[in-house]
Structure formats: structure tokens, C-alpha cells
């Protein structure tokens, strides 16, 4: 057996041992606790006891992460390219904002957004409401955008300077160089970073409970209020497993892409 296969076999053994341990524990009286978890599982996943309609729960965390990632990608691209700008009037402020957002804790930023953003905003007679969900999306998108702009910067800077020189000597303008030469190559290199960032964001959605949306932690806390001490352990293990099961495959896939991209350094 190769080294990797041996390692995989051990990991499989550990997984089997965990399953066996759960079975033994269930036989020794843990089954009634698991039954409580099973009863609450639709609520934890979708926010409603019967599993439909979706009003919260873990699925809301996923939706929140997708919405935040979309905002963060758009914002981060602008910020990342702004930090690469030649003009210091654009570069320095965006550098400052990026570092500010990167250095602030996610939880504190989320809290701050909760109070800084108004309840609703009137733009030309159009009322834009800011429900907690939107505040959570913005609060999580800001630090993610700052991190993503760093990913973009890194990817653009990793492109060999010969590419710049070659395209400049061919008479491309700055915009054309970015559009036709640099970004297509940089794009490939930023995908693993982007995916890692998404996994990080998904993990951070657990913080959104402070905004009061019905996310998995909020529901967990309300349903734990009527459970015994012992059951709480099983509930927490279930939620930890949910996050792990969602984020681990993304991390694996990102690493595989990273290895695929590693080779094409000029």
C-alpha cells in the first residue's frame, strides 16, 4: 500500500470507530437523546418544524453565505483593482479601507453594521428597507471583500512581469492589458483563494445570530432552552457536524485546484 492509501485507511478506521462509538452510546441510553435531536432536525435545518417552508436554520446560513459572497466578490474586485491603481488618489484610500476591514474582527464589524445601517433608507422617494438579514449580508460581506481584494492583488502580482512588458510593447493600453492578458491568467489563480474564502465566510455565518435572524444558532439556542444538560451535547455535535459536512468538501476541492494551479508559474 502506498503512504497515501495507508493514511486514508487510518482515517476510514477512525471514522468507523466514531460510528461504532455512537452506536454503543446509543445502545447505552443515548438513543433517546438522538431521538430529541432527530425531532428538532427539520427545525434546525429549515427553521420550520415540518421542514417546509424555509424560514431559517442551516439553509438560511447557506443562503446568507451565498448572498454575502456575491456582494463580497463584486466589492472585493473593485477594491482589489483600486489598490493596484497607479494614481495614489485611488490607491491610498482603498489601501486604508482594505486594511481597516481586514484588521477588524468579524463579530465587531457585524455588530457595528447592525447599528450603523438605518432601519430603512429613503432614496428619491424609494424606501429601501434594511431587515436584519440584509444587515447580516453587508456585515459579513465587508471583511470578506477586503480579504478577496487581497486575493486578487496577490493573483495579479503573481503574473510574471514579462507579460506586462510584452503586452505593453505590443501597444496594448492599460485597460486592454488587464482585460486580455493579466486578468484571464490571474483569474485561474484566484479561484482556490476565492473558494477558501467562501468556506471561511460560511463558518463566519454562525456569527449572524447576533443580528437576530433565525439562523441555525438562534434556533439552536431557543430549542435548547427546554432540553436537559445531557441532550445539549448531542445538539452541539449535530450542528458542528453540519458545518463540517458543508465546509470540508469545499476545502478539499479548493486544495485540489490549488495544486493544479501551482504548476503554471511562468
Amino acid at each position: 500500500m502506498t503512504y497515501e492509501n495507508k493514511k486514508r485507511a487510518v482515517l476510514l478506521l477512525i471514522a468507523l470507530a466514531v460510528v461504532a462509538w455512537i452506536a454503543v452510546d446509543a445502545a447505552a441510553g443515548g438513543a433517546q437523546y438522538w431521538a430529541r435531536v432527530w425531532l428538532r432536525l427539520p427545525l434546525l435545518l429549515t427553521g420550520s418544524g415540518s421542514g417546509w417552508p424555509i424560514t431559517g436554520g442551516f439553509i438560511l446560513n447557506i443562503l446568507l453565505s451565498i448572498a454575502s459572497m456575491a456582494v463580497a466578490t463584486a466589492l472585493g474586485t473593485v477594491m482589489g483593482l483600486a489598490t493596484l491603481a497607479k494614481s495614489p488618489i485611488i490607491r491610498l484610500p482603498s489601501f486604508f479601507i482594505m486594511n481597516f476591514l481586514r484588521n477588524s474582527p468579524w463579530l465587531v464589524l457585524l455588530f457595528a453594521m447592525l447599528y450603523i445601517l438605518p432601519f430603512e433608507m429613503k432614496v428619491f422617494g424609494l424606501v429601501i428597507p434594511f431587515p436584519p438579514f440584509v444587515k447580516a449580508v453587508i456585515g459579513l460581506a465587508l471583511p470578506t471583500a477586503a480579504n478577496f481584494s487581497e486575493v486578487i492583488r496577490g493573483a495579479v502580482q503573481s503574473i510574471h512581469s514579462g507579460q506586462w512588458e510584452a503586452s505593453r510593447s505590443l501597444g496594448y493600453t492599460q485597460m486592454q492589458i488587464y482585460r486580455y492578458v493579466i486578468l484571464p491568467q490571474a483569474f485561474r489563480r484566484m479561484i482556490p483563494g476565492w473558494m477558501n474564502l467562501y468556506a471561511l465566510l460560511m463558518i463566519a455565518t454562525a456569527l449572524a445570530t447576533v443580528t437576530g435572524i433565525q439562523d441555525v444558532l438562534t434556533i439552536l439556542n431557543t430549542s435548547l432552552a427546554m432540553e436537559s444538560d445531557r441532550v445539549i451535547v448531542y445538539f452541539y455535535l449535530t450542528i458542528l457536524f453540519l458545518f463540517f459536512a458543508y465546509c470540508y468538501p469545499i476545502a478539499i476541492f479548493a486544495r485540489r485546484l490549488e495544486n493544479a494551479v501551482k504548476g503554471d508559474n511562468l
Partner: protein
Amino acid sequence: MFGLDYSWLSDPAYQQWLLKGILNTIELAALSSCAAVIIGLVGALALTLRIFWLDAIVELFVEVFRNTPPLLQMLFAYFTLSTLGLKVTDPSTGLSVPLLSAFACASISLSLFGGALAIEAFRSGIETMPRSIIEAARSLGYSRWSRFWKVEAPIAARICLPALTNILTNLFKTTSQASVITVPELMYYAGQIYNDTFRTLEVMILVLLIYVSLVSIVTFAMARLERWMAFPGYGKGH
């Protein structure tokens, strides 16, 4: 300015709270950073031994702690470790009390979370070590031990430093989540202050600024360290 009211800041009681919060935050961050670096070193060294079962265990540890929210890890430690048996009987009252305080739970779970990140960072640092330098050291006749101390370790330390900066700042920022399990750090006292004064916006802006300045100090110090440690002809040393 902007209609913000900071008159509460002149109250010595609130100043005391903020100061205590800042000190506790720094203590928590320092403690868990040290532990995380130690876990990272031990883990990364264990990986270099290339023992397949040890490798599997370390990888499992890293993946579990990296792919679950640190907030949940902290809550788990706080609410369930005592249920699982970590409790002592107080001799004076006869009641059973949790063995670990909220602070201990927070520092343990932050150490493990940071440790998992550190193992991963150190591992990839060792992996990107230039093979040619190691081969050169070998051909010069260095023994295994002196090669490690005189060639590999100095280079690996410098390669890993930027990643270490990320981990330290990440841990520092994550300490704010310990407020959820009532650890009296900065974020916790912020909550106390705005419960008292109802100046939520002002308190949050101030706390955000404090955190950003503290983290910036860490980043700045690490950048200085990186420059100080750099040697000519390699990385940032020119």
C-alpha cells in the same frame, strides 16, 4: 461630530471597564497565540516524521477545527465539557461546579483552533522550502541534526512568518467571540456599557477602532520582525 455623543467616556467607571476589557482581550489573545504556535510546531514536526497513522490523526484534527465555526467550538466547550465530566465538587458548599471557567474554555478552544491553522501554515511552509538549499547542505556534509538547526529551521521560520502573522491577527480578532460565553473581554464590556448608556452606535464604533488599532499593532510588529529577520539574497532581504 455627526451627532455622536461620547460624554459617557468621561465616566471613570466606563474607562475602567474598557481598560479591563482591553487587558483581558490581550491576555486571552497572547495565551492562545502561544499555545497555538506550540501546537503548530509540534503538529508540523509530527508531520515531517512521515508516520502514516500520526499523519492521519493530525490531518483529522486540522480539518475538524478548521471547518467548524470557532464560535460553536467555544459554545461547545463552555456548555458541554462540564456535562461530559469535567467538573469538581466544591468542598465548601458541596455543589458540583464546572472545572473550567469561561476564560479557560475560551482559551482552550481558541488555542486548538489557532493550532489547527498553525499546523497547516507550518506544513505548507516546510513544503515550499527550496530543495536545492537542502541538497547543497547535504553535499557539504552537514549531519541530519545540524542541517535541521543551521539550514532548514532558519529558512522555514522565515517562510512561515507571513502566514504566522495571519494566524495571530486572526486569533486576536476571534477573541471577540469569547464575549458570547461571558468572558469579560473588550466586547463583553462594550455590551455592558451600552446596556447602561444606550449609546450602542458610539460604543460599537469606539470598540471597532480599538480592535483595529490593536490588530494593526500586531501586524506592524510582525512586519518589523519579518524585516529584521530577513537575510540578504532571500525573500525580502535585499
